[in-house]
């Protein structure tokens, strides 16, 4: 199983990263997965209370976050028997429209690819140590105490 996890402290372009990842995969094994499921999450322009959002701040627990992402990914990928897994996550100050998270799963069948992508996204939303703080246009800010609704 090919696994790669990166935390980005500056902006990343999901489709650029994905293209490079697929090229590497193909180069390594000379075979591309028959089924690939991806998810990209981006920052909304609106805060939880409906006000305009200036930026989102993503705090993490250096050391634990990386370990925990790896544990969650390995567990989910093994459970679904998938071939490859790429997780990219932003940290720091993220602007509206910018990507926060990319999950890309390659498998031999569409079922495992899609289910693994979906479950891993939920797992990292609930069990990976990331904390979001909303910065509003007026300079005020607030830590969020939960995830956006599914």
């Amino acid at each position, binding site marked *: 199983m090919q696994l790669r996890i990166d935390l980005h402290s500056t902006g990343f372009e999901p489709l650029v990263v994905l293209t490079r990842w697929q090229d590497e995969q193909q180069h390594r094994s000379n075979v591309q997965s028959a089924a690939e499921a991806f998810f990209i999450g981006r920052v909304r322009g609106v805060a939880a209370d409906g006000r305009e959002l200036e930026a989102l701040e993503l705090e993490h627990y250096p050391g634990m976050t990386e370990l925990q992402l790896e544990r969650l990914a390995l567990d989910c990928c093994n459970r679904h028997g998938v071939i490859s897994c790429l997780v990219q996550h932003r940290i720091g100050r993220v602007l509206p429209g910018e990507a926060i998270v990319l999950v890309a799963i390659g498998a031999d069948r569409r079922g495992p690819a899609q289910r693994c992508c979906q479950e891993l996204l939920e797992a990292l939303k609930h069990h990976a140590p*990331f904390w979001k703080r909303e910065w509003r246009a007026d300079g005020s800010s607030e830590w969020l105490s939960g*995830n956006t609704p599914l």
Partner: protein
Amino acid sequence: MVSVVFMAEPCAGEIRILLFAGLCEQAGWAEQQWPANPNDDARLTPRQLWLKLQLPGDLDQAVRVSINRQFADADTPLQPGDELAFLPPISGG
């Protein structure tokens, strides 16, 4: 492999305590060292430290505990050199 042991236990006699996000902001600090006696029969638990440090709110309500970067029970006895963290509700992705 002395260097590895030294890296894993930078403060052999102490417990390193970390707070994050809203919890760090409420408590007013991000990190503390708590003296731990390796010969102490009754070892401290995260729950006891939470109370001793007078951290805000109810530990069982929404805060998760990690010991050495793994989620753990709040009643796990701590060892000298442990890295303990109190994690407010996670909101990743």
